[in-house]
């Protein structure tokens, strides 16, 4: 900023003093959010790479394990998550326009979709649990390669489990910004937290977009390689 004289003119209450303008503050914040999302790409990327290596190494057992996924619950959950992304995007849009009540409404619908996803995931988890498909001492699988199928289920539980954890954290974040929006903390000028939580929510959606075909689809009708 070239203007070095003391400036006591009114500025947005959301502007922190180490930033020159609102735009600069928003740009810096969005970039910071993306840096965090890159660390999330690394986090999930490691698991996806592990999945690929073992899928290549134990192709047959991977198909066997994959055929025990519930195709319809997985598909419904994909739709639920995509709907939640739409309401999240509309919520962020409403916050850009300063429509306070609409922001809160869209965020609450987003939370409902998020809870719906966790409930469906819970139903699936329960089914796998009672069928002895949780890796460990009680794992049982009737087939020639139970150890390798167990490995598939390890990846299944770890990847969907961490995804569900992210959804759970997301629900908490969305609830927080919904509360803050209700209190009138954000307006046309300053609504960056809503945007950043939106970025997080959509990122978690993208992770599921890849998990869904990899776990539920690519082997569900195929018995031979």
């Amino acid at each position, binding site marked *: 900023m070239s203007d070095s004289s003391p400036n006591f003119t009114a500025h947005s209450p959301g502007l922190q003093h180490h930033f020159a303008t609102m*735009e600069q503050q*928003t*740009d810096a914040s*969005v*970039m910071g959010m*993306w*840096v965090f*999302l*890159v660390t999330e*790409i*690394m986090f999930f*990327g*490691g698991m*996806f*790479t592990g999945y*690929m*290596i073992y899928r*290549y*190494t134990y192709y047959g057992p991977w198909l066997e394990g994959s055929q025990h996924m519930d*195709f319809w619950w997985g*598909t419904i959950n*994909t*739709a639920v998550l*995509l*709907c939640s*992304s*739409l309401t*999240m*995007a*509309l919520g962020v*849009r409403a916050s*850009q*326009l300063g429509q306070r009540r609409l922001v809160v409404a869209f965020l609450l619908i987003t939370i409902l979709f998020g809870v719906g996803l966790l409930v469906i995931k819970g139903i699936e988890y329960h089914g796998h649990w009672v069928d002895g498909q949780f890796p460990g001492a009680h794992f049982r699988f009737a087939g020639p390669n139970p150890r390798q199928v167990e490995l598939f289920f390890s990846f299944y539980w770890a990847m969907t489990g961490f995804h569900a954890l992210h959804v759970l954290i997301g629900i908490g974040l969305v609830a927080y910004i919904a509360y803050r929006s209700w209190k009138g903390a954000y307006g046309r000028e300053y609504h960056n937290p809503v945007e950043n939580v*939106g*970025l997080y929510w*959509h*990122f978690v*959606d*993208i992770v599921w*977009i*890849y998990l*869904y*075909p*990899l776990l*539920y*689809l*690519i082997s*569900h*009708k*195929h018995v031979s*390689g």
Partner: protein
Amino acid sequence: MSEHIATKKTYILVWMSLMCLTAATAGASYLELGRFNIVLAMVIATCKALLVALIFMGVKYISQKITLVVIVAGLFWLFILVSLSMTDTISRSWR
């Protein structure tokens, strides 16, 4: 950078495309395409991910270059991880 506000119509169209692509990938899993099942599924998933990233996450409207550099660097890192791990795994013919 002045903030870009996408229209409601854009978001709803993107959402409808995402739902159609989900139906397409679910339907495609019933076809017997051998190794191409995974290729088709990944192509559709990448289309969906691009729609979410470009429109919902607003990557298309980011005007700040350094943010784009961060995103591309992250994806490039993922490319290195996957490609080097897989070329190693696939080329171990002596196992």
